[in-house]
């Protein structure tokens, strides 16, 4: 996957480039709009990350210019601004996404994956999810582990489904709040953790391999191997 990163802050650019490369992206980085333009026209990219506050031009103007020049790859917009610009919202409706700084790397990666998935032809949406010996029947809203039916509440099922869809990848608390509860909030209490503990108590029975892992300071991951 070829990725163009447009970010003027050296610190952010370098750590993003490093972690994106570790994840498996081929990253080209630009520090301003001019460089980004010439890079985008020379090479073909699968996805772009564009910071809104560039030194030579506005991030949105750059995106619109690139669109006019025929660059159709999805864009993840990074913004350190306070309010979400109407134009960002417009771009969001056009299929791009935005993320406010500071962000968790896991969330950035999840959003990139989502954007790439949106752009690829839709595969067969399965009605069953399977991770190791954990199986979810999405039609009957039923989860089983090693053939044993798990007694989950509706909300717990949605949470587990979200973890399964991202099996093997880290999800953060704010991602869970956004996707499972539909809220972009930052509670300063451990509300999400308690839900995860409860779910873990039901999913990871005695003597079974623990599936739900906590990565301290980062988030949670549902192990897939």
């Amino acid at each position, binding site marked *: 996957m070829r990725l163009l990163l447009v970010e003027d*802050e050296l*610190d*952010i650019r370098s*750590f*993003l480039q*490093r*972690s994106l490369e570790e994840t498996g992206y081929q990253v080209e980085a630009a520090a301003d709009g001019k460089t980004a333009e010439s890079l985008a026209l020379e090479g073909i990219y699968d996805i772009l990350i564009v910071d809104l*506050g560039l030194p030579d031009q*506005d991030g949105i*103007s750059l995106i*619109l210019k690139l669109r006019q020049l025929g660059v159709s790859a999805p864009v993840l917009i990074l913004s*350190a*601004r*306070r*309010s*979400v*610009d*109407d*134009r960002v*919202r*417009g771009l969001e*409706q056009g299929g791009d996404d935005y993320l*406010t*700084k*500071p*962000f*968790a*790397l896991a969330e950035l990666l999840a959003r990139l994956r989502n954007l790439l998935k949106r752009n690829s032809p839709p595969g067969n949406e399965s009605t069953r999810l399977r991770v190791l010996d954990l199986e979810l029947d999405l039609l009957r809203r039923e989860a089983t582990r090693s053939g044993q039916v798990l007694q989950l509440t509706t*909300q717990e099922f949605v949470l587990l489904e979200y973890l399964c869809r991202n099996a093997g990848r880290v999800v953060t608390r704010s991602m869970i*709040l956004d996707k499972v*509860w*539909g*809220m*972009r*909030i*930052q*509670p*300063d*209490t*451990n*509300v*999400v953790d*308690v*839900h995860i503990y*409860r779910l873990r108590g039901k999913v990871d029975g005695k003597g079974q391999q623990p599936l739900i892992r906590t*990565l*301290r*300071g*980062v988030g949670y991951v549902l192990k897939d191997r």
Partner: protein
Amino acid sequence: MSSKIAKPIMHSAAWRISLWATLAFACGTMLVFVFLHRFVADDIQRRSDAWLSGEVEVLGDVAERTPKDAVYGRVVGEVAELAAKEVPNKLLSESSKNDSVFFLQTGRDGAPKLWVGAGRGDANLRAIQAAGILPGSPTDIKVQGFDIPFRVASTRIDDGTLIYLGLSERDELRVLRSLRLRFILLWLLLVLLGFGIVFYTTRRMLSHVRQITEAASRIGHSDLNARVPTTKRSDEVGHLALTLNHMLDRIESSMHQLHTITDSLAHDLRSPLTAIRGKLEMSLSAGVLPEQVEPIVSAIDELDRLDDFLNKSLDVAEAKADALRLTRSEIDLDDLLRSMIDLYEPSMSERGLQIGLRSAGPLKISADPSLIHRMIANLFDNELKHLPAACKVTIDLRSEDNAAVLLLQDDGPGFDPQVLPHLFEGRVKGKDSLGHGLGLAFIDAVARAHGGTVTASNRETGGAQLALTLPLVFNTTLDRTESARSGSLRGSSGLPR
């Protein structure tokens, strides 16, 4: 806006102004007419008096010179008849029967000697004698059998007899009556026309003022880009609109400046936060020693708390300047509270707390979802952090007078009475409180930005109570202009911020 149209026209200023103006106009013209009427009446009286005096002199002269023989009666009678035909103000059509003039001659003893006129003249004589008319000055008398009084002039001739000439005031009164009738008709017409003109012009002028008011209130709610409508005329209303627009320009520019400051502050702090957070995360994933994990994790937590603090501080600062930017959409508070309770319930029961919701069903408001979500999460976080075990939190949601009322009560220790009056000022927190003490100030800021209120109190039965009101779906014109604006923004590109 619909409420303004439905308002009865009688309550409008235009109606009151035209009513008073018309009243003044009507009184003024009426006063002028009264004077005119008196003048005309006096003048007519003066003319008929002059005629009467002249005629009675002539008749007296004739009576003196005519020999007192058999033809005397006829001669004087005919002269009197002739005189009657020259009555001033007389209607021509009634010439055939003359009852408007009488002539009477009485002897020294007061007995009638000669009578010319309608009827027998007895009643006239009685009335004349009762009035005690003196020669020289015409006097009004009321004669039995006649509705309208007579004006009578008299003269004494040489032989000591008295001659009376009476003229009915009928014609004079008719002239005056027709004058009055015409005037009243004309006056009514004028007053109605005047009312119409005044009402129309003031209404037109005031409708412009109303447009200005509506636009200004709309601007006060949300839309600082809008301006009040202006006219080309340079009258007071035009000046008002221009002045308001100048004021709005200044407000918008200082608001813009405030936004620039908060934006750049946020930007300048968030960029290093992002870099630090990223580096910390990378060092975590790079495989550090187990004893190094804890400090890194807590540093990340601190960074997130710092970011939250930054956001809330700026939100509170902007809200205090009435400059918090809202992106409204429809929110069902009932639904939101249920998912919020669903989210918080496990943590609460973990701590031995109970939480319950009493709600009458869906309650939709038009508000900024992100802010409302954060505000409610803040309320819940507060309870979670401050309540001792085994307490119960109840939330009542209902609608009251076009507002959603959210009442949050607990049976905990309540607010510290010393802190209570300053609870929403920010940076205030109880002795044992964790956090930065911005929570309630933020709740207040969000409520105010949405046109709502929040009040805190201690219940009499013990425990704290927070009452939050938020207006329900607002004014349709507001939403229409807002959606029109965002629509136009979405459609165009490269618009300056």
